[in-house]
């Protein structure tokens, strides 16, 4: 367990399981490669032959049409064959274990697994048990990590604010349950962003969150002051249960991003959201659709970033 589970024996990326543990150079390499792939999507033929003959298997133990679609498009633009499985609806309910499912797909000569699962560590678990030639990409595991989302967020920030060493960034919302936030925090601190703030009520912050290298705020007005980037998080409706929050209305009042609150940030601050948004819960439509929102570009860049990750992994062999 001492070896890093994402790297092969040459120290190259074998899997992408989390941002944590990746070097600044590695992150930059992925982002730079993504810049090249961004051009591909703007061409007449939006395809390169890099993964021709390879089979990418989207293995979604938890449904997510959006993320699955972006991975599908990314794989197809790399000329891979793509198989998408919503395992959540089929074999898992028949009592088949994760590994049985994975073994079956591996027997069909899949080369890459894109895995989404409701349990933290599921992608690590699969990566540890697959055949050595297979690459695993974590497309979200429980509350743990969503590294391609973290990367596409970095790509977006870099496009709008190229000097990452000079930024103040706030992440707002349900950090406790957010795999996106964990990946963003690791990516931002690794890339050298000097000030990363998190803003949330105490019930939605993990214990010891400050150890991740962030400054903790509970008051949105204070936390948003003079930031360059506001990264909103999605609030799941079920958080209204279990005594974490009182009501969606009160949450919006205290932590929803409105034009008035956004005015406290720098005038050229950008607003990001991993989607899907709950308008009127964590974000006001006027902000989501406003001039400072880069939420749709995030989606576009997501394809290039996922192409870069798949391209890099596929080229690294054990």
């Amino acid at each position, binding site marked *: 367990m001492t070896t890093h589970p994402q790297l092969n024996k040459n120290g190259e990326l074998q899997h992408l399981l989390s941002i944590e543990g990746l070097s600044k150079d590695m992150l930059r390499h992925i982002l730079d490669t993504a810049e090249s792939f961004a051009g591909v999507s703007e061409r007449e033929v939006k395809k390169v032959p890099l993964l021709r003959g390879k089979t990418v298997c989207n293995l979604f133990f938890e449904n997510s049409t959006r993320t699955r679609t972006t991975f599908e498009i990314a794989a197809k633009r790399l000329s891979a064959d793509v198989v998408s499985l919503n395992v959540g609806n089929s074999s898992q309910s028949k009592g088949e274990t994760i590994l049985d499912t994975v073994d079956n797909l591996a027997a069909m000569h899949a080369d890459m697994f894109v895995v989404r699962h409701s349990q*933290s560590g599921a992608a*690590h678990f699969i990566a540890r048990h697959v055949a050595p030639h297979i690459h695993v990409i974590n497309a979200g595991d429980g*509350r743990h990590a969503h590294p391609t989302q973290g990367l596409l967020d970095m790509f977006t920030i870099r496009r709008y604010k190229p000097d990452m060493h000079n930024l103040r960034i706030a992440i707002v919302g349900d950090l406790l349950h957010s795999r996106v936030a964990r990946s963003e925090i690791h990516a931002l601190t690794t890339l050298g962003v000097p000030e990363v703030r998190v803003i949330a009520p105490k019930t939605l912050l993990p214990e010891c969150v400050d150890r991740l290298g962030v400054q903790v705020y509970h008051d949105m007005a204070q936390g948003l002051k003079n930031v360059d980037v506001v990264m909103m998080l999605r609030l799941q409706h079920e958080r209204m249960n279990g005594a974490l929050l009182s009501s969606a209305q009160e949450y919006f009042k205290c932590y929803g991003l409105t034009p008035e609150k956004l005015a406290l940030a720098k005038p050229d601050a950008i607003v990001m959201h991993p989607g899907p948004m709950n308008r009127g819960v964590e974000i006001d439509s006027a902000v989501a659709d406003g001039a400072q929102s880069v939420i749709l570009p995030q989606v576009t860049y997501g394809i290039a970033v996922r192409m870069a990750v798949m391209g890099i992994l596929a080229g690294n062999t054990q």
Partner: protein
Amino acid sequence: MKIRIKNGRVIDPKNNLDAVRDVFVAAGKIIAVGQPPADFQANQTLDASGQIVCPGLVDLSARLREPGHEYRATLESELRAAAAGGVTSLACPPDTDPVLDEPGLVEMLKHRAKLLNMGHVYPLGALTRQLHGKHLTEMCELAEAGCVGFSHATAPLTDTQVMRRAMQYASTFGYTVWLHPEDAYLAKDGVAHDGEVAARLGLAGIPSSAETIALATILTLAQDTGAKVHVCRISTGASVEMIRKARQQGLPVTCDIAANHLHLTERDIGFFDPQCRLQPPLRAQRDRDALREGLADGTVTAICSDHTPVDDDEKLAPFAESAPGASGLELLLPLTLKWANETSTPLSAALARITCEPAALLGINAGHLGIGACADVCVFAPEEYWKVERQSLRSQGKNTPFLGWELAGKIRATLVAGHLVHQA
């Protein structure tokens, strides 16, 4: 059968003995230490030169998985593991299937163990029927069948009225109540210590307060009722402090820790290592240090193996979905020695925590080498290192966080009631 164990360094903490002596065994008893009795003709002589001869170990918690979980382990496989680990007496919690809440089940277990004749098994009876936390069990009947105390294992006992009455009832007859301090609400869905590692890995946390709140309830009710209470497997520094204070105030409360928690912390989870999925969870470094201090000053009475054989399929899942628990019978001695070595604790004091102290707690005549005592003896090579590997473990459960570790302390021979049950 007469056995002579010669030239070993005999450490018998209860009798304050630490010297090179010969030990003489006949008819299942220790008949002399030092000079041979007149006319002693050994049938068998064990040369323990350079080795340590100590009382057979007493383990306060080993799950033998019988009845009900034979796919995980059987009485025979686990008693073999005990013998290989030098453990000659062990208490087993009542969370079997069916639960140990009827005298017949306890008698059957005792009977099966007796037939195997490889170690003394001391069942703990269920405190409530089926461990559902509602109705008391027939404690007197169960005690008569062989239960040495009454436990709620790791099943939640949320109804404090039931807990108070269970303590009152048990104390009526002088029975000890064994409780795991864990608040069911605060621990709900949790799989790891609610700290830095859980925050990083996105694992649902169990805060330290889940343990201390439950412990405060237990201590308050123990004071109320005057019951003898044994607190099982504490894991936080705050718990050590609370028990220290309670004992200073004269409360008849004892506690133990698992050998795993003596060495490991939340950081050992690494990248979701399911071997470190334990109950209670591995906590922070400062908690581990406080447990060690508690052990040194006697607040913590005993180290137990918390042996919980888990089969491979149950560990083969993402962290939260993998079954908690680890095999430990064969690691109890080496892990105790490792702690003693790291903290410069005298061997005799360290061995007391796994021999006479837990024996006293169980109220059994074991864990010492006094003349006339049952000849449960452990002979080990203290400096000999061995690697913990799946194939080196006798237990049917091959899962432990210590796989791959090199540990000092190799068991050479184990005697149960004067006959050799393990030799290597």
